[in-house]
């Protein structure tokens, strides 16, 4: 069927002594959208942040098991995290543009990775802003501060910023949770467009959103992966009772 892009094998994760993930086995298919759902505190963000090793930044964390990206363990000693993060981009829950201009925000990833050529930067910035469906709104003010934009616009700048370094995978942690319905719709539309080019993993608390945007859905519950399947199957015919209770709103 589809090519497996990322495969988690028996992943355990600890914040100090607290175990936040246990025995996660999960396949993520190339150029598909995987939605992670589950009640608050069940480990969705933790899992997502394992995929690009963002958890390395938190003191005292520990990972067991394997996370294979194209067959290569991302937690291997020889892995260069900088290269890993260029291949696995991330969009955060709270939009977090740098206090720089719109242009510099989007060009940042290219610059830190050594791109100096003005023309390439300009082309890439324009292309990424277009992909993130924000070009028309900002094309006349690329050199004003990104902080002067609205929350929804800022979040799309953050998406453009992640796209600019041409990652293979994009991780999104509740990218629309702080946005109004119109901005949310724009971002959902964007995800539809982007999945032709990228593998996407999205965390969401919004069941309709998961149903609308994703091809696969994984349900997490207190650090464990309860069930993962085609989104249609999860929402109409889940195998586990817990999953059914959660998506029908009986708890969580």
């Amino acid at each position: 069927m589809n090519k497996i892009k990322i495969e988690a094998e028996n992943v355990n994760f600890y914040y100090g002594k607290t175990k936040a993930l246990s025995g996660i086995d999960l396949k993520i298919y190339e150029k598909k959208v995987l939605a992670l759902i589950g009640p608050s505190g069940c480990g969705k963000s933790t899992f997502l942040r394992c995929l690009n090793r963002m958890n390395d930044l938190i003191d005292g964390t520990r990972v067991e098991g394997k996370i294979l990206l194209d067959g290569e363990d991302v937690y291997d000693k020889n892995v260069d995290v900088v290269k890993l993060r260029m291949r696995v981009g991330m969009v955060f829950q709270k939009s977090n543009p740098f206090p720089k201009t719109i242009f510099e925000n989007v060009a940042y990833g290219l610059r830190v990775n050594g791109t100096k050529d003005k023309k390439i930067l300009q082309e890439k910035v324009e292309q990424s802003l277009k992909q993130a469906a924000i070009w028309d709104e900002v094309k006349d003010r690329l050199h004003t501060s990104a902080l002067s934009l609205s929350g929804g616009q800022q979040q799309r700048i953050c998406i453009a910023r992640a796209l600019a370094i041409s990652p293979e995978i994009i991780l999104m942690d509740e990218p629309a949770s702080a946005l109004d319905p119109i901005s949310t719709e724009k971002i959902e539309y964007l995800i539809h467009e982007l999945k032709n080019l990228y593998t996407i993993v999205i965390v969401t608390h919004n069941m309709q959103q998961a149903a609308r945007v994703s091809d696969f859905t994984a349900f997490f519950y207190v650090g464990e992966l309860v069930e993962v399947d085609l989104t249609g199957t999860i929402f109409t015919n889940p195998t586990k009772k817990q999953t059914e209770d959660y998506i029908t709103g009986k708890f969580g």
Partner: protein
Amino acid sequence: MENNLSLSKGKINSRKIAERVIFIFLRLVAVFVLGILGIILYFIFSEGFSVLSIGFLTEMPKEGMTEGGIFPAIVGTGYLVFFSMLFALPVGVCAGIYLQDYAKQGFLVKLIRLATNNLAGVPSIVFGLFGMAFFVHFLGFGASVLAGSLTLSLVVLPVIIRTTEEAVKTVPREIREASLALGATKWQTTYKIVLPYAFSGILTGSILSVGRVAGETAPILFTCAAYFLPRLPNSIFNEVMALPYHLYVISTSGTQIEKSRPLAYGTALVILMIVALTNLIAVILRNKFKIKQ
């Protein structure tokens, strides 16, 4: 019922009175502090303003320092400020960034922080003695601009480290993570995100320490300050005159203290103005860079 009501009313009233009393008291204290500051300023201005002139700022002292200007002391203080900042700024900023962002937060870092905080509270005469023992004698710099600047840089180092740490701490975790998630290295994140964000804070701390360096007497007493020197230093191994020490000399140990009194007030006024000016610059620059963020 009625009784209850009047009782509760009474309670509220007594609380209100207490509040008013405390408010008036706090206000009086504030006015008192301001008043004292005002008196000091008025005193120094009224006594010192008459001697202020171009000549006072640009001439050598004359007649056993009872006449003439304070030019060499101004230049000397300028040198000391420049060189001490040259040493203290890079070291202090690097140390602050290291402690906050790079060092593993554990026992050692706590110890270093404790030591820096204590260092900030050490009386400056102790720095002076240390400077004399270490820079002047042990390293053999002699009483010189170099020894004085290094001693002064030790005095302000804790301040610079602290303000750098505080400024670095204000950089939101989210934008650091965003930078790292885009494949920036830790150093690139420090250099391109953390430093620009923390810049105004670091700047404020540094400029405030300029005022400190310009005004400190004890650290330069044994390390570089000359009693009287009718010429400017031509190397960092020369002694210099400096404003605070000059003020000390002409108000305590001259032969004609009464005669040089007006010059002393003039000198005090110049020091005050330098300190006020640096603080003003700090405020302006901070606001300027704040807007950019």
